[in-house]
C-alpha cells in the first residue's frame, strides 16, 4: 500500500504464524456477484485440514489467507470456525496474475514456515500460485501431494507421477505444500465456533502487490498450436495414423534412455521440441 506520503506501508502486515493455509475464493462464472455459488475447492479444504493438524502437532497457530473480493471473507470465517487462529484478507477486485497473488501472500505472511495450498481452485486456474509463493518465500515446494506422513519437524509427502508411479519427497521448513482434494477431509466446524467466528476479527492487509489487480487476462483455454511435419506413409491410412498419433506411429516414436538428470532434461526438451510442443 502506498500512503499519501509515498512511503510504502509494510508495518504491521505480517502475522507471527508458523503455519499458513491459502484459500482461493472463486465465484461462479455465470454468477460472478452472487456469493451463494462461490466457495473454495476441495483441495483448499484439504490444505486447511493439513494446516490445522500440523499446527496442533507443532503447538503453533494457523493463519488462513485469501486474496479476493470482500465476499471472500466468508471462507475465512469458516476457517476460523474450523480452528484457524488468524484470518487475513487481501482485498482484490478482479483477476490477478499468479505471480502477483503469490507476492501479496508472501507480503502478508513473510515468516511462514509451512504454507498449505490446494493444488487446484474451483475455477481450475493455472495452479501456479504455490510455486510462485515458494519462490517468493525462498521455501521448498512439494506440489500435487496425495499423502503426507509427519516426520519430526518435517514431513514425507507422496506425489503422483504419470503411469501410476509415486515419488516420495522429504520436506522440511520453510516449505510450500499443495495437496489434492481427496487427501484430507476438512473437519466440521462446531456450532459455538461458528457463532464466534461470525464476529471474529479478520485482518485486512493491503500489500503492494495488490496494485496489480486486474492485470490477469483471463481467456478461454486454448491449447498451444503444434506444428506438425507432413505425415509419412504409403497409404492414406498410414498417413492418417501418423497424423493422429494412433497405432504404430506413436510406438515408433518412443525412446527409452538412461541418462543423468541434466542430460535427461535436455533430451526431454529436445523431444518436445521435435514433436512440436515447444
Amino acid at each position, binding site marked *: 500500500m502506498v500512503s499519501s506520503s509515498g512511503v510504502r506501508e509494510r508495518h504491521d502486515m505480517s502475522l507471527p504464524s508458523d503455519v499458513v493455509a491459502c484459500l482461493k475464493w472463486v465465484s461462479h462464472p455465470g454468477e460472478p456477484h452472487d456469493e*451463494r455459488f462461490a466457495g473454495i475447492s476441495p483441495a483448499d479444504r484439504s490444505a486447511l485440514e493439513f494446516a490445522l493438524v500440523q499446527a496442533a502437532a507443532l503447538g503453533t497457530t494457523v493463519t488462513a489467507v485469501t486474496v479476493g473480493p470482500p465476499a471472500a471473507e466468508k471462507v475465512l470465517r469458516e476457517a476460523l470456525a474450523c480452528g484457524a487462529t488468524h484470518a487475513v484478507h487481501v482485498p482484490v477486485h478482479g483477476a490477478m496474475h499468479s505471480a502477483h497473488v503469490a507476492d501479496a501472500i508472501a507480503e502478508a505472511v513473510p515468516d511462514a514456515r509451512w504454507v498449505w495450498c490446494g493444488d487446484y481452485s474451483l475455477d481450475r486456474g493455472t495452479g501456479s500460485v504455490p510455486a510462485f509463493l515458494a519462490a517468493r518465500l525462498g521455501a521448498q515446494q512439494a506440489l500435487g501431494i496425495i499423502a503426507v506422513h509427519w516426520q519430526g519437524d518435517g514431513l514425507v509427502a507422496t506425489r503422483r507421477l504419470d503411469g501410476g508411479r509415486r515419488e516420495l519427497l522429504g520436506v522440511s521448513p520453510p516449505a510450500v505444500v499443495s495437496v489434492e482434494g481427496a487427501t484430507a477431509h476438512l473437519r466440521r466446524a462446531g*456450532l459455538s465456533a461458528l457463532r464466534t467466528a461470525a464476529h471474529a476479527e479478520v485482518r485486512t492487509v493491503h500489500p503492494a502487490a495488490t496494485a496489480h489487480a486486474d492485470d490477469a487476462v483471463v481467456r478461454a483455454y486454448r491449447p498451444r498450436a503444434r506444428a506438425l511435419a507432413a505425415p509419412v506413409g504409403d497409404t492414406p491410412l498410414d498417413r492418417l495414423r501418423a497424423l493422429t498419433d494412433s497405432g504404430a506411429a506413436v510406438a515408433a516414436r518412443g525412446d527409452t534412455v538412461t541418462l543423468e538428470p541434466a542430460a535427461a532434461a535436455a533430451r526431454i526438451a529436445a523431444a518436445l521440441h521435435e514433436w512440436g510442443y515447444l
Partner: protein
Amino acid sequence: MSASTTDVDVIVVGGGPAGACAALVAARAGLSVVLLERGPFPGSKNMYGGVVYPRILDQLIPEWWLEAPVQRWVTRRSTMLLTDTQALTVDFRSEAWGKPPHNGATAYRPDFDHWLAGHAEAAGAQIITSTTVTGLIRDAQGAVIGVRTDRPDGDLTARVVIACDGVNSFLAKEAGLYEHTDAKHFTLGVKETLALPKEVIDERFGVRGRDGVDIEIIGATGGVNGGGFIYTNLETIAVGVVLKITKLGAQQQRPEQIIAALKQHPAIAPLVQDGELKEYSAHLIPEAGLKMMPKMTTAGMLVAGDAAALCLAAGIWLEGVNFAMASGMYAGETAVEAIAGGDTTATGLADYQRRLSDTFVLKDHRKLRRAPELVLSDRVQHLYPTMVANVVERMFRVDNPNPKPGVRRILAQERKRAGVRRRDLLRDGWTGFRSFG
C-alpha cells in the same frame, strides 16, 4: 429459562419464508436470534411452483417491490379444465396487478428466500447454514429450551424455539404437537422448469414486460387426483402437477410421466414446446388444512409455515408462502411479547393461536375447510371436468340443420352420460357454495 441461562433469546429453525419473517420480527425487537438452516443458504433447497402473494410483506418491508427478486408480476390468472381432448379456460387479466403494490408474483425460491432471510440478517439475526437440527432440548418439566444440531458442540439453548422446519416437521412431531399424520393429508408437488426465450414466453402467454401468467389446471393428471399448473418466469416457465399421495401410490404411476402427459395435452403442448428442461424438483405439500394442523404452541416452542400445515389448497386459491410469512411474523411477535413478559410457557405463548385465529391465516382455513376434500374428490377430479367440457362443447357446436338444444337439456344429458348422480351434484354444489360463497 431466563436470558442469562440461555445462549440466545430465540432460535428459528428453517430459513424459508416463515423462518425468515419470524427471525426478522424478533431481531428487529432487539432479541438475540439464531436462524438455523439445513441448506448452504436460505432457499437453497426450497421449491414451489407458485405465486407469492405479498400483502404481509407490506407490513415487514415497505416498498418491498422495489427490491424483491421477482420474476414476473402476475397480471393474468387462468383456470383450465382439461379432459383428454378438451380444454375449458376461464381467463382473467388485470392491469392493476402489474402495478404496486401488486397482487402476486412469480419468483425463484432460492432468490426470494435468500433475499427475505437477508433482511433478517440485516436486522441482527445470525444465520447459520449447512446445519441440521436433529432434535429438541427440554428441561425437567418438558418445556422446550433449545435444539440439538448435527454439528460438533451442537446444542443451542433459547427462551423460545420457533419451528419453521417445513412440511413433515420433525420438531413439531417430537414436541407432540401433531396428534397423528396421515398420508392422505399430503400431496406431492412435482415441477419442471423449462427455459424459453422471453419473447417466446411473452408471445405464447400474451403478456409483455414483467407481466406474468398463472394457470391452474384441473384434470389431465393421469387419473391421479390432483391438479396442474403453469407459471411464467422471465425466461423460464414452471410446469407441474400436484398429486394426491395415496392415489399416486395406489395407481403406481410416476409423477414425471404424468407431467410428460400433461405437456403433450393439445392445450398445453403449444405453450411448452421446445422448452429446455433446466430443473426437476418435487416436494410434499400439506394440503388437508384444518384436518391436519398441529397444536401451534407448547412450552417454549411455536410452529409456523408448512411445519404447521399452513398451506391453503382450495381449488381456485392455492397459497402457501403468504401463510408462511404471516405465521412466521405472528410467531416472532408472540415470542417478543412472551420474552418481554418473562413467560415463555405454553400459557405465555398462547397468544400466537389468537393471532392466527383472528387473521386470514386461520380464518381462511376455517372458511375453506371443506374445500380441499371437495377439490380432490373423485367427482370433481374425474367426472365433472368431462361433464362440464361436454356441456360447453355441445353449447358451442353447430349441428345444423338440427336446431340448438336448450342448455338445461344438455346439462341433464351430459350429467347422465358422465355418471353424475343428481344428489351428488347438489351436495357438492352446496359444499362449494358454503366454501367459496
